[in-house]
């Protein structure tokens, strides 16, 4: 059977989310005047057409062919059609839309670019990695480069003439970047870099002529550990047209994202230029990583969405077994459509009720990034930056973990067919698995949330978030139509507050944080999702039409069937470290 790949961007949901989250306030910010809601929707509709008609048909092709490495020339060959896809993606303006207008970008809000990322990730995740990393590099140079560096690199990157990478990982240094050994030795006003980098996404490819690598390395006088890391720009081809000493030494063979080359990069006296201050590299990396982490979180939403659409298409067609209720049995048919079965519905609703709220939370976070970037009132900017910093690890970790479960649940709807290549869900599952690992593993996100974000500025960002949740609860106290949702939020919010307070108390040491922060992040995530549902339900309860009725039903499924897991997770958090640390190493 031919492979089934079905996708239509949920544009109605995009619109509704932007309306609920007060997009008008973002549109009013200086620089975003051109991006009114209707214009945004027409941009997204066009992007949807592109993703469905151009990117999606190559998704399976990429998975099957993979990327090929030629050791003789150290070059990488993409699956058929991928270099053209990149060119078309650039020509369609999808790469440049969210970047500064002064360097040739469209200047659109982050939230708009985020939806485009969702669509391209859903339809061709391997491919999406290339523009995704290029975006990350553009962010880094925009915020930390000099005017001269911005002028030399940004126009080419935004125009898609060059692409970007991030070179962090080394064989001995993954999560712990303090172990990094790549050296940078000054030479004139530049530096010579030597070392080996691994897992470099799109480190080498045939989409365009030049690749700009952002490389973490140590200067000769660098302090040991994480405080001695600097960031360098190392182009594949130098300004005079000669080949720089950075080459691809091989590719990894992976579970998924087969069309995305994961390269070993060898630096042998490669010429580079410093970005930002010496030894302050980690600061530059973090600005870039916030946006990148948000986008990785969205990968869970994106693949959960396409898997859900596939599962629904299958379920609507499939007949198996009879309805429990004789009234619901179709006369004359040997079997009923599987949507009569409560458990098939349960599986689909587990996915939908979480995915729509996760999307909403990711957009909420992106709008705060926009607020932080453009608001004229410093208090507004602070609020935006605080909320974005607090929620980014939640989005990255919760949405990828839940997105993976969701994609797996969609496979389950198809039964044996889901496990075959015919319906593509097996590819989505393989492609998505890495999202829980890269860009900071999910546990690193939990440590970031508990160890760094909660205590920062005396818990200011959590207070801001809690204030918004409390406002939503108070505002809807008299809204009888959604009273059950508000009650559910109030209860889970109270649990989250108690756990947050406990984590800040003296009895909680570093090991306890390590032991329970992942469970805590999930309590946070579920509560934040419920907050999004209450915001959506508040609007939906005042409107008429099928879309809004369905929204309310989804919110209710979430509040009554998904959210109660907060209670069991809270128990796990309170169990602390004792039963984890009780084991001796040789007992493993």
């Amino acid at each position: 059977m031919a492979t089934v790949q079905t996708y239509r961007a949920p544009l109605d949901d995009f619109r509704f989310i932007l309306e609920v989250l007060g997009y008008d306030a973002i549109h009013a910010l200086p620089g975003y005047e051109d991006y009114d809601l209707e214009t945004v929707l027409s941009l997204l509709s066009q992007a949807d057409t592109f993703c469905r008609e151009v990117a999606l048909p190559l998704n399976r092709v990429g998975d099957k062919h993979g990327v090929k490495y030629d050791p003789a020339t150290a070059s990488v060959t993409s699956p058929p059609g991928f270099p053209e896809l990149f060119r078309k993606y650039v020509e369609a303006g999808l790469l440049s839309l969210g970047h500064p207008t002064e360097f040739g970008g469209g200047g659109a809000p982050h939230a708009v670019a985020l939806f485009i990322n969702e669509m391209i990730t859903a339809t061709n995740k391997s491919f999406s990695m290339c523009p995704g990393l290029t975006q990350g590099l553009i962010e880094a140079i925009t915020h930390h480069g000099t005017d001269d560096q911005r002028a030399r690199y940004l126009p080419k990157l935004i125009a898609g003439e060059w692409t970007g990478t991030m070179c962090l990982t080394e064989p001995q240094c993954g999560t712990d970047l303090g172990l990094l050994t790549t050296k940078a030795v000054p030479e004139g006003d530049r530096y010579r870099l030597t070392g080996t980098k691994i897992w470099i996404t799109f480190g080498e490819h045939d989409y365009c002529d030049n690749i700009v690598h952002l490389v973490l390395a140590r200067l000769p006088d660098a302090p040991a550990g994480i405080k001695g890391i600097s960031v360098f720009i190392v182009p594949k081809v130098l300004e005079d047209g000669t080949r720089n000493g950075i080459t691809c030494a091989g590719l990894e063979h992976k579970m998924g994202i087969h069309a995305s080359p994961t390269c070993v990069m060898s630096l042998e006296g490669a010429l580079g230029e410093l970005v930002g201050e010496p030894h302050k590299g980690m600061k530059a990396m973090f600005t870039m990583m916030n946006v990148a982490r948000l986008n990785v979180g969205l990968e869970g939403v994106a693949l959960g969405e396409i898997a859900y659409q596939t599962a629904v298409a299958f379920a609507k067609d499939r007949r198996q077994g009879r309805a429990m209720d004789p009234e619901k049995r179709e006369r004359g048919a040997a079997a009923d459509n599987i949507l009569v079965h409560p458990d098939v519905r349960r599986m689909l609703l587990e996915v939908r009720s979480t995915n729509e709220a996760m999307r909403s939370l990711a957009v909420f976070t992106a709008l705060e990034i926009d607020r932080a970037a453009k608001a004229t009132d410093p208090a507004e900017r602070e609020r935006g930056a605080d909320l974005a910093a607090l929620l980014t690890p939640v989005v990255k970790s919760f949405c990828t973990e839940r997105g993976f479960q969701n994609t797996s649940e969609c496979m389950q709807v198809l039964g044996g067919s889901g496990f075959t290549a015919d319906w593509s869900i097996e590819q989505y599952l393989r492609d998505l698995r890495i999202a829980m690992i890269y860009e900071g593993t999910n546990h690193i996100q939990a440590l970031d949330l508990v160890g760094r974000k909660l205590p920062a500025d005396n818990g200011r960002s959590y207070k801001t978030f809690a204030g918004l949740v409390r406002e939503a609860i108070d505002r809807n106290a008299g809204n009888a139509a959604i009273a059950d949702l508000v009650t559910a939020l109030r209860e889970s919010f109270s649990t989250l507050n108690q756990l947050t307070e406990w984590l800040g108390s003296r009895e909680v040491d570093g090991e306890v944080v390590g032991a329970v922060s992942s469970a805590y992040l999930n309590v946070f995530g579920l509560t934040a999702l419920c907050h999004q549902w209450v915001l959506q339900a508040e609007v939906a309860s005042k409107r008429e039409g099928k879309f809004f009725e369905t929204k309310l039903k989804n919110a209710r499924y979430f509040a009554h069937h998904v959210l109660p897991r907060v209670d069991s997770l809270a128990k796990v958090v309170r169990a602390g470290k004792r039963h984890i640390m009780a084991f001796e190493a040789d007992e493993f």
Partner: protein
Amino acid sequence: MKILVPLKRTADPDNANKIKIAPGGAKVVTDGLEPKPNPFDEYAVESALRLTENGTNPKARLAGDSVVVATFGAKEASQTLRQALAMGADSGLLFEASDENLDGDLVARALAKVVEREKPDLVVMGKQAVDGDSNQVGQILAERLGWPSATFAMSIELSQDKKSVIVGREVDGGVIKLKLALPAVITVDLRIVAPKSITNHVTPQTHNYQEGARYAPLPMIMAAKKKPLAEAPFASLGVEGVKTSYVKFEAPPARKAGIKVKDVPELVQRLRAEAKAL
């Protein structure tokens, strides 16, 4: 050279199976279907753009050339015009009207008025709209204007002096080529958007266009917001009166199940005896 492209918005043709007939057969109900540009009209926009630009990268409109898009429809139809502007058209004209008060003849008469005002050198339009499938507006318009016309165009070659076109028309059994002196009316068919179907003697002969109507690049969607789009009531064109009245709509009869034949001789026999197709 100035080209006028009339556009119609139709209920999403990709979901045409979702239309319903109102009780009693009074009308076709398209509720819930997204309005989309008539595909043949999109091909007409693509053709007009190819005729008036240097197709090498980046595409640039030739000096003195312009493409004007016009529609008769509800206020929301301005979105359809904006889409055409985002593809590259230069300006748009919306004459507000309700589809129910229009027929092919009235549309053609109204278009003749638009032509009088805009004075294009060429009208390029879809051979038909995919909702009514009448296939008559282009022909009536040419007749009213007294202009030459070529229908079902699958290729257009603009002469170097821009005074005439050679149009390849799809006809039963092949392609017939007609030379038309401008101004003229051309209605286009599907194959007009093949990679080399349009020649304007500026875009190099070696250039291959992408198959189909072009995607509007996102920056062009932004730029299209600032392009001129004039709105006026349909009545301002000074034409009225529809000649068509609809008696009743019926859904086509449901398709009967097919049969399997065991071999070719049986197929031929049945085609002859039962289907009377041979």
